[in-house]
C-alpha cells in the first residue's frame, strides 16, 4: 500500500463517501466508512446491511456513495457480497458480461453489530466457509442504534439500552459482549483485524490488507455512538481511544497462515503489552458514557465496575496469550 504512508497521503486520496449525509454529528460510522473507502485499490462494489450508515447516506433521491452500492436487507450483506463476487468470477471465466472488463473488482461490506453478531451471523459464517473473496467491515456501535438503542449481542455487560434498561433490580445488560472477531478468526479465513477510528492509519492499513488477501477478510471497528452511548459528540475519538487504552478493545490482527491462526498485536496495544503500566483502568472509559452512569450514580457500584474490570483483564490476557505475549 505504498501510496498511503502518512495522514497527508490519506488526505489526498479522493473521498468516496461524500458529505451531505444525515449521520449524527460525532457519529463514528461515517468516519470509519470514509477512511475505509480511502483504502480501496481500484474498482470496488459496496454492499451495506440495513442500519444507520445505510439509511443516513442514501435518502432517495440523494446518495453519498461514489462507488456502486447496494443495500439488500438486514441479515444478508455477506450473502449479497457472495453473489456479487460470484458474478464477477463467472464473468471473468468467459470474459463476457459487464464486469469482465475489470482485471479485479473488490467487494466490500459495511454492516453494524446487529447485522453481524445477531441477525446476519448465519449469512456471514456461511460466506466465510465458502471462501468468497470479500472484505466485511463491521462498524460496532454496540446496540441497535438505528431503531433507537436496543441491546445486541455486542452490547457490553451493564450498558443501559432501551431493551436492557438500568432498573432497580437489573443494572443494564446482563450478558457479556460476544467475541465476534475471534469467532471470525476461528473460521480460518485469511485475515481478521480489530481497528479503531482513533487510529486512522492503522485502520486504513488493515482495510487495505483485508482487500488484498485472497478470500474472506473481516475488520471489526469499534464505532462510538454519541446518541446511544450518551456522551457529547466531540468525545467520539477520545472514547474510541480510551477503549484501546483500557484494553476494552485491543487492536490486533489474525492471519491464517500454514494451517495456523497467527495473532499479532497492533502498535497501540503492543505498547501496552510492553509497558503494562500504560493500561488505564476501565473506569476511565465507563465514566465518560451515560450508558454506564448507573454504575456511578446514585450509588457507586464498585462490585459491577470490578466485574467489568475483571472481564477486560481476562479478555486482554487471552489476546496476549494468542499473540504469544504470555
Amino acid at each position, binding site marked *: 500500500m505504498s501510496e498511503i504512508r502518512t495522514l497527508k497521503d490519506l488526505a489526498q486520496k479522493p473521498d468516496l463517501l461524500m458529505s451531505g449525509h444525515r449521520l449524527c454529528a460525532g457519529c463514528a460510522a461515517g468516519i470509519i466508512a470514509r477512511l475505509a473507502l480511502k483504502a480501496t485499490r481500484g474498482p470496488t*462494489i459496496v454492499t451495506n446491511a440495513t442500519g444507520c450508515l445505510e439509511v443516513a447516506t442514501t435518502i432517495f433521491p440523494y*446518495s453519498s456513495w461514489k462507488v*456502486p452500492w*447496494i443495500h439488500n436487507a438486514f441479515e444478508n450483506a455477506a*450473502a449479497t457480497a*457472495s453473489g*456479487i463476487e*460470484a458474478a464477477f468470477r*463467472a*464473468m471473468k471465466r468467459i470474459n463476457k458480461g459487464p464486469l469482465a472488463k475489470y482485471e479485479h473488482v473488490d467487494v466490500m461490506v459495511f454492516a453494524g453489530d446487529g447485522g453481524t453478531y445477531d441477525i446476519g451471523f448465519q449469512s456471514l459464517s456461511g460466506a466465510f466457509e465458502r471462501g468468497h473473496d470479500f472484505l466485511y467491515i463491521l462498524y460496532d456501535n454496540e446496540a441497535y442504534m438505528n431503531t433507537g438503542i436496543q441491546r445486541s449481542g455486542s452490547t457490553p455487560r451493564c450498558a443501559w439500552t432501551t431493551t436492557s434498561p438500568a432498573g432497580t433490580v437489573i443494572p443494564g445488560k446482563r450478558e457479556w459482549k460476544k467475541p465476534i472477531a475471534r469467532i471470525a478468526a476461528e473460521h480460518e479465513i485469511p485475515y481478521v483485524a480489530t481497528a479503531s477510528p482513533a487510529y486512522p492509519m492503522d485502520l486504513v492499513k488493515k482495510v487495505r490488507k483485508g482487500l488484498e488477501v485472497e478470500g474472506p477478510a473481516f475488520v471489526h471497528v469499534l464505532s462510538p455512538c454519541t446518541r446511544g452511548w450518551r456522551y457529547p459528540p466531540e468525545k467520539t475519538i477520545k472514547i474510541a481511544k480510551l477503549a484501546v487504552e483500557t484494553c476494552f478493545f485491543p487492536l490486533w490482527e489474525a492471519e491464517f497462515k500454514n494451517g495456523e491462526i497467527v495473532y499479532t498485536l497492533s502498535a497501540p496495544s503492543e505498547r501496552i503489552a510492553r509497558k503494562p503500566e500504560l493500561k488505564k483502568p476501565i473506569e476511565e472509559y465507563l465514566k465518560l458514557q451515560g450508558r454506564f452512569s448507573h454504575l456511578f450514580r446514585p450509588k457507586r457500584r464498585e462490585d459491577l465496575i470490578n466485574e467489568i474490570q475483571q472481564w477486560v483483564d481476562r479478555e486482554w490476557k487471552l489476546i496476549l496469550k494468542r499473540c504469544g505475549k504470555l
Partner: protein
Amino acid sequence: MAVKQIVMGLNGDEAVAYAIKQVDPDVVAAYPITPQTIIVERFSEYVANGEVHTEFVAVESEHSALSACVGAAAAGARAFTATAANGLALMWEILYIAASCRLPIVMAIVNRALSAPINIHCDHSDAMGARDSGWIQIFCENSQEAYDSTIQAWRIAEHPDVQLPVMVCLDGFVLSHTLENVMTLPNDIVKKFVGERKFVTVKNHFGKEVPLILDPENPITIGPLDLYDFYFEHKMQQIDAMGKAPKVIEEIGKEYGELSGRTYGLVHPYKLEDAEIAIVGLGSTMGTAKIVVDKLREKGVKAGLLRVRAFRPFPVRQIVENLKDKKAIGVLDRAASFGAYGGPLFNEVRNVFYDQDIRPLISNYIYGLGGRDMPPQRLMTIFEDLQKIAETRRIEKTVKYIGVRG
C-alpha cells in the same frame, strides 16, 4: 418451421436443470429442499463436469440463496435459484426486494405444502404466499412445459418493459419426480433464443444515464432509503411493469412456439369453445382434467377447461373472454386461504366477472392439500356438481372441499 429436437426422458426437476444448463447462467445460488433438490443435484453435476461456466454458490439457507441472486443480478449476472415450500417462505423478505430492485432473477418453485405439520407433497400454498411479492408466476402443466418455461422465463424477466423476476412453478412429485418424454432444443438454439442479458438505463445521482447495474465506472445506489415522497411512485413503476408483462409473456410464448412447435400463452383453454360447464385451475391437475373432459364429451356433456398458466400477472381479459358465456364454472384451488371466502384463484376469477353484464355461476373447489391425490373420478364429481349447478341455476355451497374426510 420448428427445429429438430431431441427426446429425453426427464422428470420435472431434471427438465428444469437441463434447461438451466443450456441457458448457462452466470450464478446459481441454491439450497437443497425436497422436492426441488434434484434441480441443484443435477446442476451441480453440470458444474462439476465443466459443462457450464456458472459459479454455483452452495449457500447455507434459502434466504441467502435469493440474497446472493440479488447481489449477482445487480452486478449484471444472470442468476437462478430454485426452492419449495418452507424454503420459499424463508425467502419471503427477499422476494419483495428482488422484485422491487427490478432484478430479472429466474427461480423454479417445486410446489409443496407449507408446514406445519411438515409435509413434502404438492400443493400451491407456497407459491400463493408469494403472489403479492411482485414476481411473475408461471404454473406448468407438465415437465415439457417446465423445460420450455424455464427457457422463456429469461426473456420475459429481462424484457425492457418488464424487468421483473419470474417464478416457474411445477407441482412437487407429480411433476418433479415423474419421468416424462421431454422434447429438448439444441444448445445453440436455446443460447440464441435467450441471447445476452441487456440492461435498461437509469439516471444516477450524478445526473448521468447509466446501466442499471453495479458498475464501478458508473456508480449507482441500489436499494436506498425511500420514504413517503418517492416510494409510491416506485411502486407505480412496478405496477406498470406488471401491467406490461401479459403482452410480453404472450409474445415470447409465440416466438418460442415458432421455434419449437409449442406455443404458450397466459391461459390455455381445452375444448372450451362450445362448453357450457368448465373448470379453471393451475398446474398438473389440469392435465388430468383433460382426460375427464374427453370422457364427458364422449357422453355428450359440453365440458371444457381453462388452465391458467400465468397467475401473476393475472390474465383478466383472457379469463373473461374464455369463460363469459359459460353456464357454470368451477375454480380449483390447491391452497387454502384461511379466513377468506374461498381460495385465491377463485377469488380472483370471480372478481373479474363482477363488471360483466352476464356472469357465469362460479363456485370453488379446494382440493389436494398436502399432496392429496386428484384422480379423474374426483374431478368427475366436480363436473357433475357443475352440471347440477348449470341445470338448477343455483349454487348450494360456494366453497367446497374435495376429497377430504368428514
